[in-house]
């Protein structure tokens, strides 16, 4: 099996066994069951709801399980204007999410403060928590959110954790 292809396929034992790497398998599972923590703070949340409804159907990407408990969610979708007062709650919920976790900043306000150049609004959620994907728009259409989700899936597919752990283990031996 070459490094370029994450999956090997042997036609002699077709249909029963696929050889792959642990990282590839884990990433494949993680990226196709991204349970979002919906942090709907403003009008972007309406588009987030639309992305969850039948026309756009975010469940096609395995991300339909909107968990209102941070302990069961993988990706926080910050959809809307983050005021300084709400930022305290957003940070607290982010800290309660278990690793590995990702963050999507949905829309202009969550990405940069948007049009709210004011004393009351945090100028981008990346001041407080690390953001993986920024989505432009005010608000972004559901397609844009789905595109951002696919970008995040692509990013997760490129991550490697078991390889690093294996290396670290070998070094200790």
């Amino acid at each position, binding site marked *: 099996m070459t490094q370029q292809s994450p999956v090997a396929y042997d036609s002699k034992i077709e249909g029963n066994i696929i050889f792959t790497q642990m990282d590839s398998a884990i990433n494949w599972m993680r990226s196709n069951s991204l349970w979002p923590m919906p942090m709907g703070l403003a009008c972007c949340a309406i588009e987030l709801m639309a992305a969850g409804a039948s026309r756009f159907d975010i469940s096609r990407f395995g991300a339909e399980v909107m968990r209102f408990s941070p302990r069961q969610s993988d990706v926080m979708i910050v959809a809307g204007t983050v005021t*300084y*007062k709400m*930022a*305290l709650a957003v940070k607290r919920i982010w800290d309660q999410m278990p690793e590995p976790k990702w963050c999507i900043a949905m829309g202009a306000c969550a990405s940069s*403060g948007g*049009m*709210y*150049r*004011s*004393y*009351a*609004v*945090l*100028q981008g959620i990346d*001041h407080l928590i690390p953001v993986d994907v920024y989505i432009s728009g005010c608000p972004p259409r559901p397609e844009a959110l789905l595109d951002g989700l696919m970008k995040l899936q692509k990013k997760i597919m490129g991550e490697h954790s078991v390889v690093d752990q294996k290396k670290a283990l070998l070094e200790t031996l």
Partner: protein
Amino acid sequence: MTAQEVANKIRDQFAPAITGEVAFRGEMSFTLQKPAVRDACRFAKETLGFDYLLDITSVDHFGDEPRFELVYELYGLAHGVHLRLKCTVSEDDCSAPTVTDLWPTADWHEREVFDMMGIRFVGHPDLRRILMWEGYPYHPLRKDFPLEGKSSEIPDVAFSEVAPLAGGPFVSSPTEGNTQVREPRARHAGDLAKPEKFIAEP
């Protein structure tokens, strides 16, 4: 009861304390001395039937003395009459009596006035900030507070930073022309030497 009858009764009761009076489109506004405004509120509620406190707001007359003005918007559900009571608050004695015991809804209105303008309400049961977080050091709706804010920090709790305005704040000019001319991103956005470069079609 009409607005005129209400006004007459207020005048009869509080004539020495009334410092100003405005009638506009059938609505009466009275400016009273600060010590009398609570009594006037009680009288309006208990005798005149103003059972609904619509709002308490505050005005910052920055540069004038007294600096602040409190406005109580009253309404009677039974007779449908509006009444506005005002009083001035000086910056040195930046407080006013609470009316939370008359109308429970005054609780949050007074908290908002305190948070945004810094007027303390004596006797309020729980005078905390309501929009900004506890420990924020400023009162943002005061005229001498900049729109972009000031930086503040409580370690491990909260912070705020100055928002980038890029020459703003956002302005709209009443002139001829399309939206890009009337509403530039800012009057002096970016290059101060050539502010017009942000206007696509002058």
